[in-house]
């Protein structure tokens, strides 16, 4: 095989005067070579080829000019092997992307016609996107891909600090992903709202805000941005200008005797909303999270549910409180799950209890799911609200112990 390589065939490597170079330049040259050859070792991350077969065997992918056929739309978590065969006439690429379609988890490039190449990636349970790119341009042919929980951890690390660090990293990635989706959603919402397309804006309102509500503790850590984006009319300080989501909410879901905003005011509000969200997205990049931020954040999110969502105060005009409710619970659950591997070493009972309470609350909330969203808050009766409140309270108690148990 090496002899086919045109560059190696010409002359052998034997003629090096290895020990003749004594000048400082010679040593510098050697040092550069040494540094260069050490680099791959320092950067090298290895992954098991063999283990891939242990969790379900390779997933066959066939890429042609117009199709990207994947043998299975889901796989158990752990090491996944995609065997990508190019049956089209053009060079193709295969990507495994995060659900947002932006972050690359793995790719194989340069799959020539008639060739088969493997992609091996370690994947946690969750939603992903696959893409074949015939001709190596554009978005590619995309499809959703699900990784189910195989129960076996990709790597069980006994080092407690590493578990915590990995959890914090995981949560930071989640925050980043949510801010990106928030920004994209806010842009769509603001465009529709500024255009006077109230129907579309109303449809986007609750779903977009969910990304905000999921990361609220992080967003709230910027004391100046939170009121600009999320202040409610009832909480305004005297003289404070009212901007943000709830200003638009009132305008889109107007109460009786309400004077609608002018087109100019709407445009200004939309522009402000997008600008503040961009600012937020930028600043969340620089936030340094620690494990106690996660634990306390989870608790804060649940308190938000108890004080704002269960009472229907948050979305007083749109009545979409249950969307926010779900998003707060999502945020708290992801924070808990990020800390879970560490918590299980310290206090497996608390971990089990939290797991159970989260499930109970989620089940209780699911009862009010409707279509892509939920029923409106004003459609709930007193008894139903109390039931939800009881579920929130029973989770709140063990959740308040999370930080102390996992971090200290």
């Amino acid at each position, binding site marked *: *095989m090496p002899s086919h390589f045109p560059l190696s065939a010409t002359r052998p490597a034997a003629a090096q005067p290895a020990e003749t170079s004594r000048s400082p330049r010679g040593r510098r040259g050697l040092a550069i070579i040494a540094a260069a050859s050490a680099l791959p070792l320092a950067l090298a991350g290895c992954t098991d080829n063999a283990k891939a077969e242990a969790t379900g065997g390779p997933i066959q992918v066939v890429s042609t000019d117009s199709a990207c056929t994947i043998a299975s739309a889901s796989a158990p978590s752990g090491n996944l092997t995609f065997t990508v065969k190019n049956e089209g006439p053009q060079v193709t690429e295969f990507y495994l992307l995060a659900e947002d379609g932006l972050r690359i988890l793995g790719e194989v490039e340069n799959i020539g016609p008639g060739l088969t190449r493997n992609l091996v990636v370690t994947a946690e349970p969750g939603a992903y996107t696959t893409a074949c790119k015939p001709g190596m341009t554009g978005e590619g042919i995309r499809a959703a891909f699900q990784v189910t929980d195989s129960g076996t951890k990709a790597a069980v690390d006994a080092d407690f600090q590493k578990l915590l660090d990995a959890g914090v990293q995981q949560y930071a990635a989640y925050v980043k992903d949510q801010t990106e989706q928030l920004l994209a959603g806010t842009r769509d919402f603001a465009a529709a709202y500024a255009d006077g397309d109230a129907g579309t804006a109303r449809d986007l309102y609750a779903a977009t805000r969910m990304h905000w509500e999921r990361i609220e503790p992080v967003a709230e850590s910027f004391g100046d941005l939170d009121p600009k984006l999320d202040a409610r009319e009832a909480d305004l300080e005297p003289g404070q200008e009212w901007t943000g989501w709830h200003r638009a909410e009132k305008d889109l879901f107007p109460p009786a005797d309400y004077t609608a905003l002018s087109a100019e005011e709407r445009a200004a509000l939309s522009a402000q909303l997008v600008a503040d969200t961009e600012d937020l997205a930028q600043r969340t990049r620089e936030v340094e999270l620690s494990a106690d931020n996660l634990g306390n954040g989870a608790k804060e999110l649940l308190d938000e549910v108890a004080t704002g969502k269960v009472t229907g105060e948050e979305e007083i005009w749109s009545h979409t409180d249950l969307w926010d409710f779900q998003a707060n619970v999502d945020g708290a659950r992801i924070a808990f799950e990020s800390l879970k591997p560490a918590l299980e070493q310290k206090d497996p009972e608390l971990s089990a209890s939290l797991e159970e309470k989260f499930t109970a609350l989620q089940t209780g909330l699911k009862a009010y799911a409707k279509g892509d969203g939920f029923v409106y808050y004003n459609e709930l009766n007193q008894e139903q609200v109390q039931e939800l409140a009881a579920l929130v309270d029973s989770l709140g108690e063990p959740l308040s112990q999370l930080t102390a148990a996992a971090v200290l």
Partner: protein
Amino acid sequence: MTANFLIGLREGLEATLIVVLLMAYLVKTGRRALLPRLWAGVAVAVAVSVAFGALLTFGPRGLTFEAQEAIGGGLSIIAVGLVTWMVFWMARTAKTLGGELKSRVDRVADGAGWGLVAVAALAVGREGLETALFLWAAAQSSGETTTPLVGALLGLGVAAGLGYLLHRGVVKVNLARFFIWTGAALVIIAGGVLAYGVHDLQEAGILPGLHIVAFDVSTAVPPSSWYGTLLKGTLNFSPATTWLEASAWLLYVVPILFFYLRVNLAAPSPVRSPRENAMASS
């Protein structure tokens, strides 16, 4: 067949260009004795790549995608550093050629010769791993049909052939133009390598901004076309270039080229004939 041929051609050109220009320089300045070192670097890179590729294809462990990109990107950026140093070294030693004692020149060349091994190894090695992985995949599938492997090898062969022709052509160019031309070409090629390295690191998630694209001319210059292949193979031109890549390219090429040209045009080499001097400064 064509597509695999183009891949071979592109990867081959990416690996060959820097080596060819350095070779031409050594021949031109009468340092043929240093050629084996250049070839040694190439051979080491090819051997390591092929062995590593085989190990990753058939061995029990594969490389994570991030590591693969990080190695490619990291080697590219180191290669740029070395090529830059080489270009200025060439410019400097070119001046000492006639004016100083031969022994001194040789001593300097001897030290820098080790740099040559590293430059050659990096120039080839940065593309080597990816190419080797591709070739092993082609070899594996040759049980079904040999066309992919033949196509890719033909592409590599043509790249080597083009490299040889370029070498011959460059050697014929007159000395005054030669130094300016080779050095400037190397700087521009190195700029492409840098941008490519930045892109690799962006894909690995080590650098940000993978989706913030400065321009996208993929429809006008499809990467699968022959001209797209040549642009990519020679200048590492990417039809969809991110801002970070574009900035890295500009921030590298503009100042380096400026300093390079200033060094070269300001103090002409004593080897040049008066006529050539007049040409260089006009």
